[in-house]
C-alpha cells in the first residue's frame, strides 16, 4: 500500500489541529440539540398550529443543512483541510442545486397539468 509515500504527508498531517475530545462532545451536543428542536417542531409546534407547514419545512431544511455543516466540518475534519479541497468538495454542489430547482419546477408543473390520481 502507500506507506512509503506519505512521510511528507504524515508531517503535514501533524500541522492540522486535531479535534479534542471536548470539541467532539460539544459537536455531539449541538447535533443532538438540533434534532431535539426538530422533534419539538414536529410534535408540538406544528400540531398546535403555531406555525404553517411551509415555514416548518423551511426551518427543517435549514436545521438539516446546519447539522450537515457540523458533521462535514468537524467530524469529517473538512474545516481543518486546505481551502482547495474545501472548495472542490463544496462548490460542486452547485450542480445539485440546479438539479433541485429544475425537477421541483417540473414537479410543480405536473401537479397543475395532470388529472388527480
Amino acid at each position: 500500500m502507500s506507506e512509503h509515500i506519505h512521510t511528507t504527508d504524515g508531517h503535514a498531517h501533524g500541522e492540522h489541529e486535531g479535534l479534542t475530545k471536548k470539541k467532539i462532545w460539544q459537536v455531539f451536543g449541538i447535533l443532538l440539540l438540533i434534532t431535539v428542536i426538530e422533534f419539538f417542531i414536529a410534535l408540538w409546534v406544528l400540531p398546535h398550529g403555531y406555525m404553517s407547514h411551509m415555514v416548518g419545512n423551511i426551518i427543517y431544511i435549514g436545521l438539516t443543512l446546519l447539522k450537515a455543516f457540523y458533521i462535514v466540518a468537524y467530524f469529517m475534519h473538512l474545516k481543518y483541510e486546505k481551502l482547495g479541497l474545501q472548495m472542490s468538495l463544496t462548490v460542486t454542489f452547485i450542480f445539485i442545486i440546479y438539479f433541485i430547482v429544475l425537477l421541483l419546477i417540473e414537479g410543480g408543473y405536473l401537479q397543475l397539468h395532470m388529472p388527480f390520481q
Partner: protein
Amino acid sequence: MDSLSQLDQVKTTPWSGGRSPWSVEYGKIMMWFFLLSDAFTFSALLVYYGAQRFSKFTWPDPDLVFQSIPGLTDSGAPLVFVGIMTFILIMSSVTMVLAVEAGHRNSKKEVIGWMIATVIGGFMFLGCQALEWSHLFHEGFGWGEIPAAEHLEHFFSGEVSTVATQQFANLFFTITGFHGFHVFTGVVLNVIILCMTIAGVFERRGHYLMVEKVGLYWHFVDLVWVFVFTFFYLI
C-alpha cells in the same frame, strides 16, 4: 545564488509539483471524491422524491405512516422510533471520531474500544431498520405494493391517492434500502479495520490513517441519514 537553486525555488509553491498541494494523503483524497460521487447519487434519489411529491396533490402523512415502535406499540408514537435510530447513528459517528482521535495518539487500546462501539452502533441501526421494514411490510407496503384501498385513509391526513402511496412506498424502500446498504458496507469496513487494529497492522505502520479514511465513509453514512430523516419523516 546559482541558477540551479533558483530552479529549486520555483518548485516550492504548492501547485508546482513534487508535493501534495492539499497536504492530504492519496487514499484520503480518493475517499473524499468517492463520497462526492456517492453524494450525487443520493441527491439524485432525493431530488426525484421531491419532484414526485411536488407533482402530487396529496401525499401520505409521515406522522401517520411512521407511528409504531416495533415490539412496544403499533400506533400513537410518531417519530419516536426513527428518533432512536437517528440517535444511534449520531452516537456511532461520535465513537468513530473518538477512534480517530485515539489513533492520532497511537493508542491502540482506545482505538479498539471505540471501533467496537462503532460496530455495535452500526448493527443496532441495521436491526432497527429491519424492524421498521418488517413492520411496514406487515402493513402492506413494499416495492410495488401498497395496503388495500380501504385502509389507505389511515395514512393520509387529507385526500387519499393510490398513486402517491405507491410512489411513496417505492421511494421509501429504495432510498432507505440504499442507505441501509451503505450502513452495512460501513459495518463490514469497520470490522475489517477493527481486526487490522487488533492484529497490530497500524501500530507497525506507525499511523492510523486507515481509521480516518473509513471514518470519513462512516460519517458520510450519518450525513445521508440526516437528509433522509428530514425528507421522509419530518417534511
